[in-house]
């Protein structure tokens, strides 16, 4: 078993034009910074990106958008990105907006080997258009399909050489779901340790889901909305 690769360039080397990628993170919190930088460097195009958000103009998925490498975004909220707005209005970029819980649960379904789920989110709204509906106990639900993604790119706090992952605080968000859902999962970690050093009771993503793992470099971990209170 050898899952450890040298760096992000090696980790994404098999990703090609037109692939469907899942990218973990909420806002800029817990995003796979190194993999995004490597994708920008390699210049892979026509990507479909499944990610809760689309980054900001000069960071996160915004870096891929700026180079016009993204053909379609599947997200729940994309508000913080002017270049995104420009490409959307000119029709260069396709966007599918879906409720955040539906996004999470479509990842979960993929990771748990279930083809679809029923959720009440979006019933009675335009999200329900052209979707199969079904009532359970008098309440209406929508059929939503599991995502199919070629790759999941996730970011964890700690990982071991067998691919076991531990996330930190709210940087967990979509990462463990996507780690389970991609055909091939690439994990970048702040601290890579030998197998056996992480407490098995504390593992969030078991290594079975992770194909490639590497020690990330130079994490910026940018804060989107720095909010503080006055010191007492």
């Amino acid at each position, binding site marked *: 078993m050898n899952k450890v690769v040298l760096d992000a360039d090696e980790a994404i080397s098999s990703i090609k034009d037109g692939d469907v990628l899942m990218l973990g993170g*909420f*806002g*800029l*919190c*817990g995003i796979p910074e190194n993999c995004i930088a490597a994708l920008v460097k390699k210049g892979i195009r026509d990507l479909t990106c499944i990610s*809760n958000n689309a980054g900001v103009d000069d960071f996160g998925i915004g870096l891929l958008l700026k180079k016009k490498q993204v053909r379609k975004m599947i*997200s*729940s*909220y*994309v*508000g913080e990105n002017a270049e995104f*707005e420009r490409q*959307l*209005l000119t029709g260069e970029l396709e966007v599918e*907006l879906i*409720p*955040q*819980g*539906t*996004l*999470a*649960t479509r*990842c*979960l379904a993929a990771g748990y080997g279930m083809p679809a789920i029923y*959720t*009440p*989110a*979006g*019933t*009675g*709204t*335009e*999200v329900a258009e052209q979707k199969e509906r079904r009532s359970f106990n008098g309440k209406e639900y929508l059929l939503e399909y599991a995502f199919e993604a070629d790759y999941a790119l996730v970011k964890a*706090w700690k990982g071991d050489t067998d691919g076991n992952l531990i996330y*930190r*605080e*709210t*940087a*967990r*968000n*979509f*990462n*463990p*779901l996507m780690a389970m859902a991609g055909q091939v999962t690439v994990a970048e970690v702040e601290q890579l340790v030998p197998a056996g050093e992480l407490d098995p009771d504390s593992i*969030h993503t078991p290594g079975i889901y992770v194909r490639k793992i590497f020690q990330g470099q130079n994490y910026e*971990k*940018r*804060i*989107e*909305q*720095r*909010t*503080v*209170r*006055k*010191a*007492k």
Partner: protein
Amino acid sequence: MPLTKEQIAQRIAKELKDGYYVNLGIGIPTLVANYIPSGIKVVLQSENGLLGIGPFPEEGMEDPDLINAGKQTVTTIPGSAFFDSAMSFGMIRAGRVDLTVLGAMEVSDRGDIANWKIPGKMVKGMGGAMDLVASAKNIIVAMMHTNPKGESKLLSHCTLPLTGTRCVKKIVTDIAVLDITESGFKLLERAPGVSTDEIRAKTEGNLIIEGDIPEMKF
């Protein structure tokens, strides 16, 4: 006098009970956290995967891994827990969250809500709002009674694209507290010095006024 946004939040905070798990939306709802009554424990849920949101950090203590659903840096309270986004919406969908407070652009007199999209304007997305309104058992809307043009936001039918249907239970605006009932908006309280006539004039949907309507108390 119409209420300030802070006073709307303060009035909503009176609905909180000991042991409540509460999800607060962005805007006026966020301010409710500043008025949690003393002596009770309320746990705030953040849909990006946190139960037990604490105050904003002191300067220099910001942690990029610790944010709320508005992407603001936050802290945790003792007894907090982190989890992934599927579990977060699982607890919302399964009705474990006792109270959801949301802002809105429009609410109809049967409890429909529109708060995510304005045709012709850049659509940013619904985020978690559709999941919340489809499942929350108790939804309070915090909003101004009229829009900046002076038009009522309490309507017989929403004109904007819906976020959810028949889900809002209560509305607290700058001039009134109203319940959504089978027959429409039922006026419960009015802002100090605001007349029922003014509330009637600013409410386009069906409004029920029974007996004397007390002024809000703080």
